[in-house]
């Protein structure tokens, strides 16, 4: 059974009189111990989906439809008190930029200890400190450096510390939002390796939210490509990278630089992602799509995801016709 089963999730943002559809009909499943990559450009709704999972949407955000079944329970039906026990203890998140949000005037250890005590993961401060040391060692920081302050850490170490904090209460699902953005390549690789190791050691289910296809190719079993708040393509990593069906996925892959096959120019995707207040009536990607198989239907009706092969969903009229 899947640990996390998201069905038809839709989120609106209220802006004055009107509701903006930030996310529409997103579904995915995550098995225990597997990893999912959520890929898309900025503003495609990927962070909104994660915030909705944890029920942490800003005031203007409303979950208008769907279910989030975590371990057999629908998170959207829970009371706020129950939800608080799920967050961090069962499903935890490393926020984008959280590494720059550590409290500058307290030691890293004491910040981890606070999390442990708040969530009753341990009952005595001494045990909490021991556990904090273990957590730091686990992410590759010597335990005695826990007594240092965040500014004495490098960027990579702060990111490790934030991951340690997210793992404090042994969650089963870890969501990492752009965990390597703004880090150097070598540090990115270190964090990638760390996530890989932690996932194997702790049998974690991992969701990586990123715009970097390379990271997803390295780390994830399944990939969900989002565009304009909707699913574009959802498949196993192997299928998605070798048999992409959606024109958007293809363009994304072509735009990705590959050192092993350097050419003189890179393909790019002309135009911009749609704005939430001016979504196209049909397929969200239609205005930027230059695929030869497109038809008039693309501009009128949003395609629903269809299964082109087992476990491979594509939301494209062309793929539907070629079933």
């Amino acid at each position: 059974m899947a640990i996390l089963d998201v069905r038809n999730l839709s989120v609106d943002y209220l802006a004055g009189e009107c509701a903006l559809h930030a996310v529409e009909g997103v579904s995915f499943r995550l098995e225990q111990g597997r990893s999912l990559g959520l890929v898309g450009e900025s503003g495609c709704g990927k962070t909104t989906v994660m915030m909705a999972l944890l029920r942490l949407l800003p005031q203007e955000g409303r979950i208008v439809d769907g279910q989030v079944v975590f371990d057999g329970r629908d998170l959207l039906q829970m009371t706020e008190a129950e939800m608080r026990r799920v967050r961090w203890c069962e499903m935890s998140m490393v926020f984008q930029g959280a590494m720059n949000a550590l409290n500058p005037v307290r030691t890293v250890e004491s910040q981890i200890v606070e999390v442990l005590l708040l969530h009753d993961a341990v009952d005595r401060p001494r045990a909490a400190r021991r556990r904090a040391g273990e957590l730091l060692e686990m992410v590759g920081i010597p335990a005695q450096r826990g007594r240092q302050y965040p500014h004495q850490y490098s960027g990579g170490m702060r990111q490790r510390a934030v991951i340690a904090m997210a793992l404090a209460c042994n969650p089963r699902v870890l969501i990492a939002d752009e965990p390597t953005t703004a880090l150097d390549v070598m540090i990115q690789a270190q964090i990638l390796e760390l996530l890989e190791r932690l996932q194997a050691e702790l049998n974690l289910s991992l969701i990586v939210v990123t715009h970097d296809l390379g990271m997803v190719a390295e780390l994830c079993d399944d990939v969900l490509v989002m565009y304009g708040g909707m699913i574009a393509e959802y498949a196993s990593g192997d299928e998605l990278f070798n048999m992409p069906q959606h024109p958007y996925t293809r363009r994304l892959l072509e735009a990705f630089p590959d050192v092993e096959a350097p050419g003189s120019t890179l393909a790019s995707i002309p135009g911009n992602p749609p704005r939430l207040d001016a979504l196209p009536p049909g397929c969200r990607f239609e205005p930027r799509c230059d695929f030869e198989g497109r038809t008039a239907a693309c501009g009128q009706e949003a395609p629903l995801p269809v299964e082109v092969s087992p476990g491979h969903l594509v939301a494209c009229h062309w793929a539907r016709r070629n079933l």
Partner: protein
Amino acid sequence: MEALKKYLRKPMGVVGAVMLFLIVFVAVFAPWLAPYDPNVRVEVEPDDILAPPDAEYLLGRDDAGKDVLSQLIYGARVSLIVGFTASFMSMFIGTTVGLVAGYFGGRIGTLLMRVVDFLMVIPDLPLMLVIIAVMGRGLWNIILVIGLLGWTYTARLVRSQVLSIKERQFVLRARSLGASSARIILRHVFPQVMPLVIAQAVLDISVAILAESSLAFLGLGDPTLISWGMMLNFAFERALSRQAWWFLLPPGFAIVWVSLALVLIGNTLDEIVNPRLRTHHLFDPRRMVALVAGAPRVETPAEE
């Protein structure tokens, strides 16, 4: 436009603006609104001295038999002129000093900030008293003294902002385009600090009005003009013993009214333009983390 809309959504700000508008209106149209001209000497009967309010003299009369309401109306002029002029002056000096000290730094910056420190540690009111006593009690002397002593906070505020703005990339970009220091300061740095300066200047107006009232109350106001502070001074000296509350309360109330209006406006502007007070919880990861951690309270870090 965006800022105006934001402003209108804050009830406190709107109340302040209405209150200030009323006072400005009264000050501008004083000759038409005031039932009597307080500068005209009147023949008085013994009964008229400190006569209580009646239908003809709504706020009663003072110890010279003049109408208190008319004095109050004319007094608004003095208060507002002093407030606006002095605060404009301190805004100008403070912004210039802050921009120069922040942008150029180095020895000039250190020197300017030492001057600021020096002025800041001297208690304002006694210093003003001494200067006015020496220079004389003219309206312009009062404005000058208040303006020249009130710019220090603005200078500090501007300097601290400039220090961070000048490290931003668009300033470096302007430099790499070959822009002169003057151009960078006027085109790139000043527009970023201007909203803060204006918010601060509005708050300064109320400080200046209070300072003028204090001076006048202590007997160092311009003797040729009626101001609220001066009225308080007279009332305190001559009317209090005879329980003529109608002479004492109105100027005090007017001062509170105007200061309150300006503080409401100033704080609202500050709320809109001050980057430290403007966050959204989605964009403030620190609060976000605290939220998820289930922390009962959100800590404000000590640096802020």
